[in-house]
């Protein structure tokens, strides 16, 4: 059984029909990527999964349970964490406080400590800046913190929204290496990326989203070879 199964969801912003029947599955241990142009509905799909924008129709099954009516703040205890688009870290709080907030719903001190050490192992830079107000850090460091904060809940499924946004190419490569590591350590990942090149490099499978519907689904290697995908998303003519 798939870890996450989305069946024909429709989501709206007011009267705007943003998702028009999206279906996708994520198997345990995979990195699945959603690619598509601006406004195709990638972020909306993530917002529908994590309860911020509950779909009006359709089913979302996570770990065998329907979750489409669950409030956003309960998703984390079910095992879904997100590093949102634009990072959305708590700017006026320190790195440590941000990470503590990531473990807000947990009470097991030892476990929290362990996960914090794991985050610091993945991102040694965060340990150096532990007392720093997070809004004063660089974009790359903030991205690391956003991912670290999400990992603090020890999620089964990690939703990553545009982790490469606004970062220098060298940094993008480093962040994506770390994402691969996180996946290897056992976290399933659903990755939304504008930068289809890097996303398809680390992903197992990919979905292509266009104006609110899935138009293509294939193993990542196959998508990379697909002439249409190459033309539209990989910047080749």
């Amino acid at each position, binding site marked *: 059984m798939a870890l996450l199964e989305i069946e024909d969801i429709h989501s709206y912003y007011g009267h705007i029909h943003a998702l028009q029947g999206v279906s996708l599955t994520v198997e345990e241990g995979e990195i699945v990527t959603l690619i598509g142009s601006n406004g195709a509905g990638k972020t909306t799909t993530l917002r529908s999964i*994590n*309860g*911020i924008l509950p779909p009006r129709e359709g089913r979302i099954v996570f770990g065998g349970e329907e979750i489409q009516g669950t*409030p*956003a*703040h*309960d*998703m*984390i*205890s079910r095992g879904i*964490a*997100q590093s*949102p688009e634009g990072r*959305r*870290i*708590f*700017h*006026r*709080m320190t790195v440590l*406080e941000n990470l*503590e*907030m*990531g473990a*807000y*719903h947990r009470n097991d001190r030892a476990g929290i400590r362990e996960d914090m050490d794991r985050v610091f192992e993945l991102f040694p830079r965060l340990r150096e800046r532990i007392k720093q*107000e997070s*809004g*004063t850090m660089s974009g790359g460091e903030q991205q690391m913190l956003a991912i670290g*904060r999400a990992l603090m*809940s020890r999620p089964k499924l990690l939703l990553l929204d545009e982790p490469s946004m606004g970062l220098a190419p060298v940094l993008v490569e480093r962040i994506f290496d770390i994402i691969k590591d996180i996946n290897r350590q056992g976290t399933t990942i659903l990755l939304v990326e504008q930068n289809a090149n890097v996303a398809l490099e680390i992903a197992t499978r990919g979905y292509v989203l266009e104006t609110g519907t899935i138009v293509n689904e294939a193993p990542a290697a196959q998508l990379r070879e697909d002439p249409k995908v190459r033309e539209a998303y990989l910047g080749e003519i």
Partner: protein
Amino acid sequence: MATGEVTKGRSGGLLESARASSWQTRIAVAVTALLLVLLFVQAVRDPAQFFSQLVIGVTNGAIIALVALGYTLVYGIIELINFAHGDNFMIGSFVGLTVLAGTFAGIGLFSPITGDSGAFLKVVGVLLALVVAMAVCGFVNVAIERVAYKPLRNSPRLAVLITAIGMSFILQNLGLIWKGPAQVAFPELVSSANILPTDAVVFRWKDLFVLGMTVPLLLGLSYFVRNTRQGKAMRAVAQDKEAASMVGINVNRTISITFLLGGILAGASGVMFGLFNGITVFNVGFFQGLYAFTAAVLGGIGNLTGAVVGGFLIGIISSMADQYIGVEWTSIVIFSVLVLVLVFRPRGLLGDRSAVQGGGS
């Protein structure tokens, strides 16, 4: 926001904005300096009177600061000026009065606690009045948010603001129905006798009482917001509600807790105000609320330290103006200071940060 901006705002902000000076700034600085010098002259001429006046200012400031914190907490988290807050303060003083009278809704529970009661009974009475008023006001504040503000969370700002003003009128008129239009007297439970052996400087038991109650509340609140998990969740919600819900924080509950805290402080200050001044009246919340709101804005609304600094400043300025300029000038002086501060620092003295504890951009 750039790094430099943040540090600038924190440290050299005041000086720097003075230095980026125009002729208006120079005049403002000169006027302030002149006033301080005049005050200093008075202080040297009659130090005893000056210090007595300072004590009054600090004590009044403490009460104002508690109310100001309620404004600033709520503004910080949902960017709403909760105009009903001052009236909740009035409700607090009425509840305290009722508890001390020992009679509620015609049912006598115990005989009234008055100035003639024994010392032990007085202490118990005061504590009971405080606790009950804090609980009631906390509850009232939470209820107001649930009933009047929460349904409008996604409406235009103005709608919520008008609702807040409406809530203020409702509470004020409930107070009018409850205790009538005239001032009501508080029993004199805390002595007005001077603690100090000399007659020159006046520091009364009353002053000690207010400070002794306020300072722990202020420290407690500061500890709560800074160090506890719930306090950190409040700051997180203030900064980014959606991100807060993504990490598992129940945003609605956190907002309720914020209103609860504000209400508790209003209740405590309502009772202290009554005991300190010996009277209360149905529209006391309007004036006291206005001062407290001014204090919050003066200090930088959304900033907790700012509310406390603003409260003490307003208290001290008004007591000094009472003594050295004339009572009829006090309000003019206070609001002139407010206007001046806002002209030069639109976000208030410590308000380099836009929202609470100081939130998003």
